[in-house]
């Protein structure tokens, strides 16, 4: 087998460049193993965030040959043999150093999600059927690798949209809450007006890169869009609400969360 040729982005907020490394191949390696070998031999100062090495912590997100992937879950033998492997940090977020980017944007957006707000607790506790539990279970598999946020062109190519766009990772959180039978918040106006649901043009890149195979677009974003249509764009639904005297909650009521 020929040597493994790695081309890794080195730099920080002041700029950077690619550096090339060449190593002997080892059977069964993932890209993170190769990065660790480079750290152990040629570049001990190479920065790389990682933790579980099992595809469950979401720490080692980066871009391999231009595609967002987990370094720990990408086997070297899945990549074109004999060709250079390019590793860069996630493009949508500010860089800290080398392969480590600042993902705090996502946590700021997570803080803006109006939290789960159940009705007063009945005697004997809350009850949920298995069908309702299973519906939200898919969304709970998210490991917060933020690759869906990274690949989303709404913020990847348009920094100015970050103010008013929650992104796919938070849309699955909104969807999970909206589909929760015990939640009393109505977030439809919020996701439309302040979280930029309308900016998503459903190109499904988030679904393509999700390492947990969550159907982000089909099961979260499109159902959210349809709920927004119910609320704001469907005259028959509007008439139904009028006849049945079911009023939609106001944006002010939707923009709330319980105290910690």
């Amino acid at each position, binding site marked *: 087998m020929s040597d493994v040729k790695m081309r890794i*982005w080195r730099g920080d907020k002041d700029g950077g460049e690619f550096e090339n490394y060449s190593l002997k191949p080892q059977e069964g390696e993932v890209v993170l193993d190769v990065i660790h070998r480079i750290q152990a031999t040629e570049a001990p100062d190479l920065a790389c965030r990682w933790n579980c090495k099992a595809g469950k912590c979401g720490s080692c997100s980066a871009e391999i040959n231009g595609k967002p992937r987990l370094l720990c879950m990408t086997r070297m033998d899945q990549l074109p043999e004999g060709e250079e492997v390019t590793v860069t940090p996630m493009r949508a977020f500010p860089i800290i150093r080398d392969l480590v*980017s600042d993902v705090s944007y996502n946590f700021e957006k997570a803080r803006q999600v*109006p939290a789960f707000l159940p009705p007063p607790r009945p*005697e004997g506790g809350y009850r949920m059927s298995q069908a309702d539990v299973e*519906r939200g279970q898919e969304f709970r598999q998210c490991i917060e690798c933020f690759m869906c946020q990274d690949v989303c062109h709404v913020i990847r190519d348009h920094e100015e949209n970050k103010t008013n766009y929650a992104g796919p990772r938070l849309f699955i959180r909104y969807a999970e809450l909206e589909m929760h*039978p015990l939640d009393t918040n109505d977030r439809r106006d919020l996701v439309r007006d302040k979280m930029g649901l309308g900016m998503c043009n459903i190109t499904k890149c988030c679904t393509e890169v999700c390492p947990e195979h969550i159907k982000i677009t*089909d099961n979260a974003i499109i159902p959210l869009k349809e709920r927004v249509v119910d609320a704001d764009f*469907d005259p028959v639904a509007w008439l139904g609400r009028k006849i049945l005297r079911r009023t939609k909650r106001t944006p002010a009521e939707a923009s709330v*969360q319980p105290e910690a």
Partner: protein
Amino acid sequence: MTTTENSATRVDNSSTPVILGGARGGPDVTTMRTDRWWLAPVITVAILGSFVIYATWAAFVNKDYYVGANMHRDLISPFYSPCLTQSCVATGAANKAVFSWWTISPALLILIFPLGFRMTCYYYRRSYYRSFWWAPPACSVADSHKSYSGESRFPLIMQNVHRYFWYFGLVFNVLLTYDAVMAFRTPGDGGIGVTIGTMVLCLNATLLWGYSLSCHACRHLCGGQVRSFSKHPIRYKFWKFVTPLNAKHMQFAWVSLFVVALTDVYVRLVASGTITDFKLF
């Protein structure tokens, strides 16, 4: 049942500022992808472009869309069904026309609805945003627009009418199913039979039902919009029925597009006398 008070109070936290800016890592290039990411958009442009060109020609040509009693077959092209206009020959008598004021090709009146259904379809939106609009052309390839507002403003905010086109689509499915059933007749002979044309029309109607039932709006209206499945067991059953179909929506979208064009081609070839509609039994 008694209840205890919920201690949660409502606090507005939606205005937490997001810090923007900061130098990004990696080189300033359109993409670092090394695979053939451009292939899918090129194929999509070729197929959708070909369909649009063919459908436009077929809609304007205004002939050879009906095989009638003189050929002992009852076949009508899906582009021209239902035949409700003054100019449509399949009604047999012009005075039966519902839209008597419409004197040009009837297809132009009809195609608005299936075209609108497909144009606002979530799957086709994905396809043409990527391939025609390059927003983005492929995942992690930079889009070609300086600013971007997606479907949040006019005109793209009109994509939200998709469910209404879906309702119209259901009406057309019923009509095309009726056409498929009528295709079993052999007018002039007074009997029934199965021809290649019958099979083609049946296949077309079946795939269009598949495309409509797998639609995301259908899935939502069937049961997706409820908060609690357990309180709506019948809607939950509907939702469970259409959810596996929804997973195949892309396949239904492409295959039904091919077959609707194929059906028009077949009826056109038979009506013009180029081929004979072979009778199976």
